[in-house]
């Protein structure tokens, strides 16, 4: 402590002394300045002293010296002559000393370029240091030294750092890009290459910085974003808050170039259509589907959806940037979700309030309704700063309408009396604006303002006069009383603007006050010489107008005034006088004009429009600096208009997707499965980073999976709006399987956005190792897991049979984990890499939380697994004779439906047995009410003798009622029906025996049904028994501790009700089947089926 305090005093001394030396232009604290002058002579020694200390061998002395030097720099003193002494210490082992030297270098290197070069080799060495912090800080300093000679070295260092294994170093390199660019814009092309590379980076740490670099270096290269768009959207929640701001504003710009406008034509920037707009709020779905065929690009929706949670951020800048994103991109009826958050920001610091209020002011002009419910939040408090007050006033005025005007006016009355007269004047203007905008209250306002004319305060009165003048001009008909009243005021008011206004008003309406007007002119003639210029001009005007209307009384007065004006000091007034004289006084020289004098001077004038100062601010993007200062700031990037036709959306599809990575790390196959991404491997291959890597890659690749899915999920959301978000898990799961495909499939497939659902199934028809039966059974599960699972699974897949349950389950497992994760698509914090199920020595914190999360949810113990057995039996859907050549068979795949979790997935194979092409095979539009079907995509054509397999989802609503719908070709429609067996309405789940008992405990009494049967001998052993049960119903085997008790578990597809089957074998081939389920009807039906099945030979 002691040493510290002596330090400080020495800084201060130093500071004082220095400032004294430097021409003394600074005001230093008085206590020091005396000392400073006293030390004047010794000052140079002091710097010498520092030099000596730096050259000393003792680290502590060096550090001491550096601290003092930093103190000098902080004060803005010049310490550049110490450069040689300081630069020697750049290689110091002491990290604090080194950092301080860095600070010094960055500050002075520009001035001492030659000497600065001495330090470069140290940095180059540090760039290879094993410690990532040292590598990063070396790069930071190296790139901050603005010495043009080292540009090539910087370039090299940046390139190297961009593929460093540490994301922190990569982040630093993104920052360095901007530095190098500002130093030498010629490097742009090379830098863009680095940016392109870093944009592909999957670390959340890097994302914000590289987008920043992108915005600074090449904002016009929007094409670089395409491939990274979905990734950025998905990473957004995890990026640090500052990065979020930058990314959101970039994505706003991007979206405006890539998507079509979600705004209905009539709703765009039109206050009048507000009402229509609100109606549409309630009937949103109908609007979207029927009135206008607009469908939002799924990527557009993805952006909106992923930014929404950020409205809850604690960082006001993030909230504001989401708000502006919604303002500029969201459909009109969705914008209002930002209101609450913006109003919340008003409780923040004064400066934040200022910016937010400005933006609200602009928004409230176009969209009153958004902020009207929060009107009271804009009430002014006496403690607000002046600029806050006037902004609140502005907003209140914007919000005023017929309904709330009385409340607002009452509030304004309080403000008018405020001690802050500037604010009071502002309020009067606001009242004026309300009065013109809302005709109902014009009279009330006018009366109120007239009362204010007797106010004691000059500014208030003056402002009232000005506003009254404007109001009267709008409707002068019956207000001669007010004009008279104001004429009387002329004696007392001294504010020139107000006097001028009164004079103008009397002149304009002199015919309504024929008695008073000449008298006013008389008074003005007396005081003419002592008036302000603006008042003089209006006096001349008044005289001219009166001369024209009432020349008898005013001729002399007018001449007098014109004479005074002729010799006025101000040339404007002399000019005006001369002009007026020529115009109104007929003489031989005056030409045709004077005939029209009356029409010129007394022409009816349009009333001034009182409008908001924020009216035209919307030309700037909200939340920007340009918007705040209402001029274009340098570097402002214009927000483009929506394109009329959306550019190709497929550019955002990513070819190389590795959902592999999600589970692969645990399997150790990462490298092999994606040879294309060698650069990435380089990033992640370092073992030291493993932990972090796995996490990072896990997260990011899962994002990738879902990003490619986003197209899907988005379009789904279009098709049925009310779909809950919980279903997204299914969607994204499906999509991940699709994204795997996409690497092998061409883009053409993906372009058919609407038809995306088909590819996975379509492809299954001709798998490489064809094995139609089991392939069809297992294809979905395998699809999802094949790339993740070992290569062996591929070769094995052909032989997946029902006996292979164990294997299948193990494959399914990773999918479960993913399923769980995808639910929290937005909450990336909760993501854990797949290996969660793998035993690991170090459990990462987030992993723990996830496990916690698992155990908390009530169905966590049950996981949907693949079916233990898939019946090969397919049923006839459409006979080829009735189908005019089109034959269809259906089969229950017993897989969880990809489209919606409560649907049962059905696989349909269509065969063309006719001799001509069948075109446009699809499911008819008019399906019976209440039946929810997820149709397969239209099959464009089917060649003769060709067949195709498609899958669809049907919500049977947990009943065995047949689903009737129509299968259509181009020419024909065929009514078909699918009849499910009760066992097909379940999904197999895995659970432990313990959980099984727990569940069973809950499902007693009514929910239980049992029967005793005699089983055939062969069914007494567990294997065949399991198979029998599994064949009958899609249930999973629960591992049992007892040999004679077999347990199975499943859940209903639609409602997710638990189904528990217990088969207890007794002696002499008797067995008790017990079924516990909430769905007792289904339970008894299943019991009947099981009885039959097990009793069979």
């Amino acid at each position: 402590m002691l040493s510290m305090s002596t330090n400080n005093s020495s800084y201060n001394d130093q500071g004082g002394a220095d400032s004294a030396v430097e021409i003394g232009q600074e005001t230093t604290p008085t206590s020091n300045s005396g000392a400073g002058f006293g030390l004047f002579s010794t000052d140079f020694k002091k710097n010498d002293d520092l030099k000596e200390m730096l050259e000393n061998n003792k680290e502590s002395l060096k550090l001491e010296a550096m601290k003092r030097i930093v103190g000098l720099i902080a004060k803005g003193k010049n310490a550049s002559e110490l450069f040689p002494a300081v630069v020697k210490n750049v290689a110091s082992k002491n990290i604090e000393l080194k950092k301080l030297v860095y600070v010094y270098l960055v500050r002075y290197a520009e001035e001492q370029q030659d000497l600065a070069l001495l330090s470069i080799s140290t940095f180059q060495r540090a760039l290879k240091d094993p410690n990532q912090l040292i590598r990063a800080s070396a790069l930071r300093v190296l790139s901050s030294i603005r010495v043009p000679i080292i540009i090539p070295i910087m370039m090299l260092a940046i390139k190297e750092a961009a593929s460093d294994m540490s994301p922190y170093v990569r982040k630093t390199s993104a920052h360095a890009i901007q530095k190098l660019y500002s130093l030498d814009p010629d490097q742009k092309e090379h830098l863009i290459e680095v940016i392109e590379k870093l944009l592909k980076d999957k670390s959340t740490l890097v994302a914000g910085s590289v987008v920043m670099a992108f915005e600074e270096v090449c904002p016009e290269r929007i094409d670089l974003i395409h491939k990274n768009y979905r990734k950025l959207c998905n990473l957004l929640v995890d990026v640090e808050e500052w990065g979020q701001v930058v990314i959101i504003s970039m994505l706003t710009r991007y979206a405006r170039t890539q998507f079509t406008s979600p705004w209905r034509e009539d709703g765009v920037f039109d206050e009048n259509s507000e009402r229509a707009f609100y109606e549409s709020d309630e009937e949103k779905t109908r609007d979207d589907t029927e009135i206008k065929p607009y469908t939002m690009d799924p990527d557009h929706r993805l952006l909106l959806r992923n930014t929404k949670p950020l409205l809850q951020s604690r960082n006001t800048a993030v909230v504001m940037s989401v708000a502006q994103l919604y303002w500029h991109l969201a459909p009109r009826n969705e914008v209002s979700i930002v209101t609450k958050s913006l109003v919340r920001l008003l409780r923040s610091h004064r400066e934040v309030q200022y910016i937010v209020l400005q933006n609200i002011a602009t928004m409230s002009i176009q969209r009153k309704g958004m902020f009207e419910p929060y009107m009271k939040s804009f009430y002014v408090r006496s403690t607000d700063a002046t600029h806050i007050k006037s902004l609140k006033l502005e907003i209140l005025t914007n919000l005023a309408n017929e309904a709330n005007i009385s409340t607002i006016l009452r509030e304004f009355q309080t403000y008018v009396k405020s001690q802050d007269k500037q604010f009071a004047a502002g309020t009067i203007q606001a009242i004026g604006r309300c009065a013109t905008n809302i005709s109902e209250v014009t009279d009330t306002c006018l009366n109120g303002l007239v009362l204010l004319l007797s106010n004691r305060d000059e500014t208030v009165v003056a402002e009232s006069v000005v506003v009254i003048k404007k109001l009267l001009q709008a409707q002068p008909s019956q207000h001669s009383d007010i004009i008279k009243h104001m004429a009387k005021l002329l004696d007392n008011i001294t504010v020139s603007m107000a006097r001028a206004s009164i004079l103008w008003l009397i002149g304009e309406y002199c015919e309504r006050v024929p008695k008073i007007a000449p008298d006013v002119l008389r008074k003005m003639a007396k005081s003419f010489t002592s008036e302000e210029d603006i008042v003089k001009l209006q006096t001349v005007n008044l005289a001219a107008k009166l001369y024209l209307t009432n020349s008898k009384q005013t001729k002399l007065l007018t001449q007098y005034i014109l004479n005074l004006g002729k010799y006025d000091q101000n040339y404007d007034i002399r000019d005006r006088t001369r002009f007026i004289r020529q115009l109104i006084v007929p003489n031989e020289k005056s030409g045709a004009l004077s005939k029209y004098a009356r029409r010129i001077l007394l022409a009816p004038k349009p009333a001034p429009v009182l409008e908001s100062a924020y009216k035209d601010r919307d030309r700037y993007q909200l939340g920007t600096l340009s918007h705040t200062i209402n001029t274009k700031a340098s570097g402002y990037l214009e927000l483009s208009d929506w394109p009329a036709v959306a550019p190709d959306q497929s550019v955002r599809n990513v070819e190389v997707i590795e959902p592999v990575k999600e589970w692969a790390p645990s399997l150790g196959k990462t490298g092999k499965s994606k040879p294309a991404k060698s650069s990435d491997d380089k990033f992640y291959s370092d073992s030291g980073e493993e932990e972090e890597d796995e996490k990072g890659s896990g997260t990011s690749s899962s994002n990738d999976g879902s990003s490619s899915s986003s197209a899907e999920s988005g379009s789904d959301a279009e098709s049925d709006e009310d779909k809950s978000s919980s279903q997204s898990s299914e969607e994204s799961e499906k999509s991940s399987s699709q994204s795997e495909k996409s690497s092998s499939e061409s883009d053409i497939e993906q372009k058919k956005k609407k038809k995306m659902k088909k590819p996975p199934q379509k492809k299954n028809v001709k798998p490489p190792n064809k094995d139609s039966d089991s392939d069809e059974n297992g294809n979905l599960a395998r699809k999802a897991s094949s790339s993740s699972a070992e290569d062996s699974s591929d070769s094995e897949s052909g032989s997946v049979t029902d006996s292979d349950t164990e294997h299948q389950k193990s494959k399914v497992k990773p999918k479960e984990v993913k399923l769980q994760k995808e639910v929290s698509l937005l909450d990336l914090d909760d993501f854990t890499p797949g290996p969660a199920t793998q035993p690991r020595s170090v459990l990462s914190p987030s992993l723990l939380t996830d496990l916690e999360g698992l155990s908390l949810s009530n169905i966590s113990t049950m996981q949907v697994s693949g079916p233990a057995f898939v019946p090969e039996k397919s049923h006839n859907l459409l006979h080829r004779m009735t189908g005019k050549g089109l034959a269809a068979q259906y089969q229950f795949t017993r897989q969880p439906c990809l489209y919606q979790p409560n649907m049962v997935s059905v696989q349909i194979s269509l065969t063309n047995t006719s001799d001509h092409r069948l075109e446009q095979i699809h499911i008819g539009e008019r399906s019976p009410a209440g039946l929810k079907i997820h149709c397969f995509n239209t099959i464009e054509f089917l060649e003769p003798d060709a067949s195709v397999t498609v899958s669809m989802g049907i919500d049977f609503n947990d009943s065995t009622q047949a689903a009737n719908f129509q299968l259509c070709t181009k020419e024909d429609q065929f009514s078909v029906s699918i009849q499910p067996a009760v066992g097909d309405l379940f999904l197999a789940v895995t659970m432990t025996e313990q959980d099984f008992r727990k569940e069973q405990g809950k499902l007693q009494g009514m929910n239980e049904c049992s029967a005793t049967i005699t089983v055939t001998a062969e069914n007494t052993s567990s294997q065949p028994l399991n198979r029998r049960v599994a064949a009958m119903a899609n249930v999973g085997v629960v591992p049992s501790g007892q040999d004679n008790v077999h347990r199975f578990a499943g859940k209903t597809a639609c409602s997710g009700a638990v189904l528990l089957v217990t088969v207890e074998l007794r002696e002499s081939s008797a067995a008790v089947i017990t079924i516990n389920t909430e769905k007792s009807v289904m339970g008894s039906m299943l019991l009947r089926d099981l009885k039959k099945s097990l009793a069979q030979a």
Partner: protein
Amino acid sequence: MIHSLFLVNSSGDIFLEKHWKSVVSRSVCDYFFEAQERASEPENVPPVIPTPHHYLISVLRHRIYFVAVIQSEVPPLFVIEFLHRVVDTFQDYFGVCTEAAIKDNVVVVYELLEEMLDNGFPLATESNILKELIKPPTILRTVVNTITGSTNVGEQLPTGQLSVVPWRRTGVKYTNNEAYFDVVEEIDAIIDKSGSTITAEIQGVIDACVKLTGMPDLTLSFMNPRLLDDVSFHPCVRFKRWEAERILSFIPPDGNFRLLSYHVSSQNLVAIPVYVKHNITFREGSSQGRFELTLGPKQTMGKGVEAVLVNSQLPRGVLNTNLNPSQGTYTFDPVTKLLTWDVGKINPQKLPSLKGSMSLQAGASKPDENPTINIQFKIQQSALSGLKVNRLDMYGEKYKPFKGIKYMTKAGKFQVRT
């Protein structure tokens, strides 16, 4: 983005400057001083000032202006938010953020600023990351450093910088594991002349002080989460969980942090805990005015109203006051015309009052507005909205932590118009 930073004290001296790109002459601040002169109050300096080549964005905290120099388009809130974060960090490090504290710790300040921004773009603003990079100065550490020659600067990249929970450092150890939560609600209200409420809102925050070993995962649930209308979270809170279950689930940062701020939905009627009876009159033509003020508790749910402080900006015409408080002390500053009455605790049996006369400028006309009265108060052990924490659970660690929760209600911007 942020080019340079200047710290300006209330007397208009630049006492610290820091540049992240090439040096900007401090003469750029002249534009700021101009604006400062024009503004009547320190708060009235506009936060954004355009100059020919730069833009100045400033915040005022603790009577220090933090003036950032910007050269090109950037969201102004970005800069403002960052500057406030800088102030918070200083406060965190030095206890106070005053000119003296900054000058005393100029090296640490410089090191901090260096870490917080790189090329004008925020690099590390999370306090626990910064604290690993640069250790906060304490007396003990200063002594140890002088003796051993060790430094305040960390040599390793803080683990938080790379982890998915950047707000928490690893390897936290405490002998006493404790977690305290303060539910603090502020009531903002405007009461009109007749005593009716014009607007009243409740905002609350939950500030936490968590000192737990390892990587605890906490869940906090409320009895009545429906009360919360609009919330903003510390980044540690899992948003999905909140959306689905209205439960706060989070891995807490180490130490003090603000877990949540919320707004109570405006549908709920707000019970105003105090009432004010006032009679402030100025008579025309007389140089005397009457001043009477009585405070009383109202709907406080049996809790005492403490730390009551009344202040009011009297009209300019008031020369002096001659008042008599029944309790507490009052001061009147004849220059700023600010009346302050420190009441203390309100005794419901004997209501505090302040009565007396004001002397007005002779000959001046009567002020046309009565002063607004600002009131501050505290009510311990009660959250006005009725928000209650149901339970706090910890997962992920074995030990049993000590848990504590405290409620408090405060007056926010509580104004009475007279």
